[in-house]
């Protein structure tokens, strides 16, 4: 087996027992990037020298008995995360030459845990998109079928991991940007509870929706990663003082007698029939694991996309105002079409005379959607739902139809509006393309999600399927 295709847990074990070095592991990843990324285009910036230097340092630390959680593990970072001294573009030409003077808190934590940063992963510019095609640095290809999109906006992070160019990667999820690409690339992706992981230093898309998560090959890897990034940050006023448990600890407790809800609104909504069948099989698996499947209703789901596409562009229009051409080198003419579309939309809905009809109304609907989940979770432990209504689509297929593109987030935006966590786990292949399911729970229930995800993953082992590059 190649070192670069190890799970985080395996890699860590191998490093600590000195079966291989971090330099070897890092070189294996860099070699894979060298070999395949011209085609996949999952990185905007690759940090060969810095990564190898960091790997050497990790090796000497391992020798000294250091066992920090991510020590010597090569990681890809979505290019939305500020990295001190490493160009951070948000995949937009506006920030083409921007080199941050500081590290995002999540980066500081990852570095502190010993990780080796391989480079900055491609994504939709400003995280606007569901396919990765809005990147100003070219679209990322799906490693499973290079004519298809890998899902967005964390397209590069997902594709890089799925094609064995890193051991784990970071992403952001504002409306599905981690769960969708995880689902399209057959990997595990977590959108944590809003505020569980600090947003400080990560280029803001829509501040009240942005969740800072990550991709791994397995559920256990994912829990190990969250152990590093979760927690209160004095630089982010929206991170509460809620204790961080060991997320990997109760992972093997099984799901016998757990009540798992299936929202009817997610099943009856024009899903691809092949995917409906697959989802029924998923439910059967859960039942065979001892869980009770309960039908639930989230009655305001149908308003979620409309609500999301009011709130999100409103916040986007304000968050992008700082790129006014005075700093950062490039002016506003460098904004891509999608960013411009959202700036105009958001500016309009916040304008005097329209605010009440749009933004205020949307915030009220948001409260109702949140309440839908609160009510549902009174009777169930978790929800299982599809991530996407379709299989990964062809590159270019939805580029000229923004509305169609927006609708691909139909099952994912609700979690962001409600601020609840969602874990995307591989659920099998259809026509050689991956399909994922998401497990949703109440706020700060990541332990439960991992427990459910782990049981399903260990039963089905879909994560073992690898694309042929």
């Amino acid at each position, binding site marked *: 087996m190649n070192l670069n295709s190890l799970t985080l847990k395996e890699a860590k074990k191998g490093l600590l027992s000195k079966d291989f070095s971090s330099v070897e592991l890092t070189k294996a990843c860099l070699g894979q990037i060298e070999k395949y990324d011209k085609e996949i285009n999952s990185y905007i910036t690759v940090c060969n020298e810095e990564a190898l230097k960091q790997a050497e340092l990790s090796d000497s630390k391992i020798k000294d008995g250091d066992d920090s959680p991510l020590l010597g593990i090569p990681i890809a970072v979505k290019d939305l995360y500020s990295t001190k001294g490493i160009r951070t573009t948000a995949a937009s030409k506006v*920030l083409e030459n921007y080199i*941050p003077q500081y590290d995002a808190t999540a980066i500081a934590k990852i570095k502190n845990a010993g990780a080796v940063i391989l480079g900055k992963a491609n994504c939709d510019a400003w995280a606007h998109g569901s396919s990765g095609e809005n990147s100003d640095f070219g679209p990322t290809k799906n490693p499973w079928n290079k004519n298809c999109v890998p899902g967005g906006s964390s397209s590069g992070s997902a594709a890089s991991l799925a094609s064995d160019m890193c051991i784990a990667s970071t992403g952001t999820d504002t409306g599905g940007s981690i769960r969708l690409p995880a689902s399209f690339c057959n990997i595990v992706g977590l959108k944590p509870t809003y505020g569980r992981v600090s947003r*400080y230093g990560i280029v803001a898309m829509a501040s009240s929706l942005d969740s800072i998560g990550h991709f791994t090959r397995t559920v256990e890897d994912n829990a190990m990663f969250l152990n590093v990034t979760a927690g209160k940050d004095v630089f982010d006023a929206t991170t509460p003082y809620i204790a961080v448990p060991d997320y990997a600890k109760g992972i093997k407790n099984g799901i016998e007698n757990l009540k798992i809800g299936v929202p009817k609104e997610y099943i009856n909504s024009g899903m691809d029939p092949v995917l409906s069948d697959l989802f029924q099989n998923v439910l059967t698996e859960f039942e065979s694991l001892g869980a009770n499947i309960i039908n639930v209703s989230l009655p305001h789901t149908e308003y979620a996309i409309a609500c999301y596409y009011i709130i999100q562009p409103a916040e986007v229009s*304000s968050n992008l105002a700082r790129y006014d051409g005075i700093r950062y080198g490039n002016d506003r003419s460098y904004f891509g079409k999608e960013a411009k579309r959202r700036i105009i939309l958001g500016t309009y809905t916040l304008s005097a005379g329209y605010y009440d009809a749009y933004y205020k109304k949307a915030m009220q609907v948001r409260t109702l959607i949140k309440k839908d989940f609160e009510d549902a979770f009174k009777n169930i432990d978790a929800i299982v739902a599809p991530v996407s209504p379709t299989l990964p689509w062809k590159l270019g297929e939805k580029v000229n139809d923004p509305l169609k593109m927006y609708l691909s987030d139909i099952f994912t935006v609700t979690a962001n509006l409600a601020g609840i966590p969602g874990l995307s786990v591989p659920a099998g292949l259809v026509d050689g393309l991956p399909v994922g399911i998401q497990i949703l729970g109440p706020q700060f229930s990541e332990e439960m999600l991992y427990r459910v995800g782990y049981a399903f993953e260990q039963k089905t082992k879909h994560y073992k399927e690898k694309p042929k590059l």
Partner: protein
Amino acid sequence: MEPVIGLEIHVELKTKSKMFCSCSADYFGHEPNTHCCPVCIGLPGALPVPNKTAIDWCIMIGLALNCKIPLFSKFDRKNYFYPDLPKGYQISQYDQPFCIKGDVEIKIDDKDKSIGITRVHMEEDTGKLIHSTVNGKEVSLVDFNRSGVPLVEIVTDPDFKNAKEVKVFLQRLQQIVRYLGVSNADMEKGDMRLEPNISLRIKGEKSLPKYKVEVKNINSFKFVEKAINYEIERQKEILESGQTPEQETRGFNEQKGKTVSQRSKEEAHDYRYFPEPDIPPIKLTDLEIDALKDNMPELPDAKLERFKKEYLLSAYDSEILTREKSTADYFEEAVKIGKDHNISPKQIANTIINKKVDIVNVLPAELVKTIVAGTQTTQIDKKELEEIIKKVLAENPKAVEDYKNGKENAIMFLIGNIIRRIGKRINPNQLKEIIIRLIK
């Protein structure tokens, strides 16, 4: 015609750190762009974390202005573009400020007048533009040291009828803010900035005029009246010619003593306010508000009343002594020391007020000593004292002659001789007066 004037006043707080980051808020006179961090220059990804002390101080200002303090409050984003605003929006408060509905009593020609306070809210200051020439090219430079310094905005009801009332109110506000110790409130340094809204209506009319003119750039106390009076006259002329003044923002030009149009109604901003998603709403409890009340220093009115009662001072004396907190504190310290020397508060008050004591350099104990010395002199019989002085003058004709010829020092020689002859502490100034009188 009757002026209708309401005020917007910005007060910069003197907290240690800025409103949303830990940079020093003490920027005045510092090298440009040395008090900055990712937050106050609005770098990608930076987030604001509110300064608890600044919020407490804002609420204290509200309490001092008799405002109600709602238990729920939030920050909002005020969106607009300007080169000194690095995020493209200012974090401010829109519809749910920290303090609402207060009032302040002022005295105009011995009559009490109440000025309504609409609201007091918290926001952040902007950077500063410096227009200069670099290598022969005219440029505008931005200094972000001030960006993010805590700013409290106080909005009054349109209760003022003339510039004098505005000035008295401003002095009052400055006094209160300084008593609270939350700002230097120095207009010349920009710690306190005034933006009056001025319009005119026919005397006796109740409804507000259909237009108003906001005047900016009044950067000094001495221009407050000038700017307002100029604007009143300007509008009067327009109205008398049968027209209505334009709703606009005007800037005061110090050199010309005039207001100049800056922005018309059509160019008015749509700030697109919405709740700041980066800062959770602020929820207060009655207990917290009470604790702030308990921790507030005694305010000018209360102090004045206490001085009258406790020290049996006149309203006039009390007013002068409490005008500035430092004077009041000095007075009370001296009273404490004076008690041991049988010096009355009234004697101390008289000395401070009449002699214009330098309270920065003369310690209260020293002041009491001088008063004690002065008191002892009077205990010597006046005639006896004059006898001694005459004798000393007669014994030292040369010194007397020298003094007459303009040698100021000679008089010190005579005073020294006299004090030695009396053998008691005595007020040299008093002696000097008698000597000069006798020589003449």
